[in-house]
């Protein structure tokens, strides 16, 4: 019987992290920022049907980058978790923080115990009743949970996008300047992105009970014009 080679735990974790990072870097990035009426989420996405951004609950949105089937599975988990909780308790008891923790647990468990880590990075955003209570939770492939302030960038090339975004972004911006800033940060200096290359949605305080709203191409064109 042949003995398996000894591989140090450090090496195993490093290999898994490299594997996940490579998978995520292949996909296109996504940004979320606060604006005057809530949170706007903008993804680079040429598909009009396979969404990266979606609604979880009244005030909670979800965004994912990386492998579609993996983050979509997480999205479905989130919707189910939120709807059951809202049914058993009250709609007020569904909050982003506990959902983000559950996601961190799932991603962390998968990262340490499974052969293959999930090649995803996700964002759970909750729009508060005031701008001060807005929340952005960024969860990495290994379960690392970060509570971000004001803006969040997910996916490949995140650092340079974050640099560009932090130059233009102000939390007092209206929707138009927020979307323009996000699209400019995603595209960078060498190319331009149009409405058909992007997916835009808002969690808007003024939207009634269900704050989540997807902006269609015509609206995005008007905002970018």
């Amino acid at each position, binding site marked *: 019987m042949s003995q398996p080679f000894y591989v140090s735990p450090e090496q195993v974790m490093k290999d898994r992290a490299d594997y996940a990072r490579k998978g995520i870097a292949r996909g296109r990035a996504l940004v979320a920022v606060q604006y005057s009426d809530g949170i706007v989420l903008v993804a680079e996405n040429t598909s009009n049907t396979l969404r990266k951004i979606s609604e979880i609950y009244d005030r909670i949105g979800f965004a994912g980058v990386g492998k579609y089937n993996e983050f979509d599975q997480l999205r479905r*988990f989130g919707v189910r978790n939120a709807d059951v909780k809202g049914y058993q308790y009250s709609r007020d008891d569904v909050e982003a923080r506990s959902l983000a923790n559950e996601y961190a647990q799932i991603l962390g468990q998968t990262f340490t115990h499974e052969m293959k880590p999930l090649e995803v990075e996700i964002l759970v955003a909750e729009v508060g009743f005031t701008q001060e209570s807005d929340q952005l939770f960024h969860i990495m492939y290994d379960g690392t949970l970060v509570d971000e302030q004001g803006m969040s960038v997910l996916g490949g090339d995140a650092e340079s996008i974050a640099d560009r975004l932090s130059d233009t972004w102000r939390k007092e911006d209206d929707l138009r300047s927020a979307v323009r800033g996000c699209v400019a940060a995603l595209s960078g200096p060498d190319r331009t992105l149009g409405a058909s290359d992007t997916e835009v949605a808002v969690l808007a305080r003024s939207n009634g009970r269900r704050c989540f709203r997807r902006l269609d191409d015509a609206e995005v064109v008007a905002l970018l014009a």
Partner: protein
Amino acid sequence: MFGPDDDPGSSFVSLLRRVGIEPFGVESASGVGAVNAPHGTTVLALRFEDGVVMAGDRRATMGHRISNREMEKVVPADRFSGVAIAGTAGPAMDMIKVFQLQLEHFEKLDGRPISLEGKANQLSQLVRANLPAAMQGLGVSPIFAGYDLLRRTGRLWDFDLTGGRYEERDFVAIGSGGGPASTVLKVGYRPGMTVDDAVTLACRALHEAADVDAATGGADALRGIYPVVATITSDGWSRRADTDLAPRFEAFLAEQRAILGGGAS
């Protein structure tokens, strides 16, 4: 998270059962006889040129006692449909809650809303699931109405206690005051009515039902409680304000006063 072989799909009721919650508590008819619980009474729906009008009185009764004067028996199911309930208040409210969640849950998971006919079908399954409770006198019979975005028209359905689903062409009224309300609708209904005429007709039907049925509440000008009247069109659900309804009920009274010549009858 669910694996591919035990995934509950887009149904909220299946999901609840999968996680061990039974949304319809009464399991079987054990023959305890009728339970005395609050009942709701006259609700109706009719079509007009741009969609449907739904309306319902506000009274809930327990035997001969008025248990609630402000109950809302007509509620939006989602943006383009509404549900009106006659029957036992408790299970009815629970059913509405599950139904609303079912529609929203599907919309979020699948990324698109259920078709109007699909929604009616879903409600019929919920009514059928409530059958054991109905056998013990806790029956719920709803009206479902909405704007069909595919066919660009208003449509409406009523249901029996076994979940039977019947699409009505123009109007329907159910509950203890459903008889007189239906008659008013039948006499006053015209195809392609304007929204204003349809709202007045709905108010008239409730007014006449309240006049003869003790379990139906009329407009209560003293407390400022008016029936729930809502329209559903391609712009979605919109509830009529009390200030819009009050003059209509005032006009019915003025008309009756004139007929009676100020005398009592």
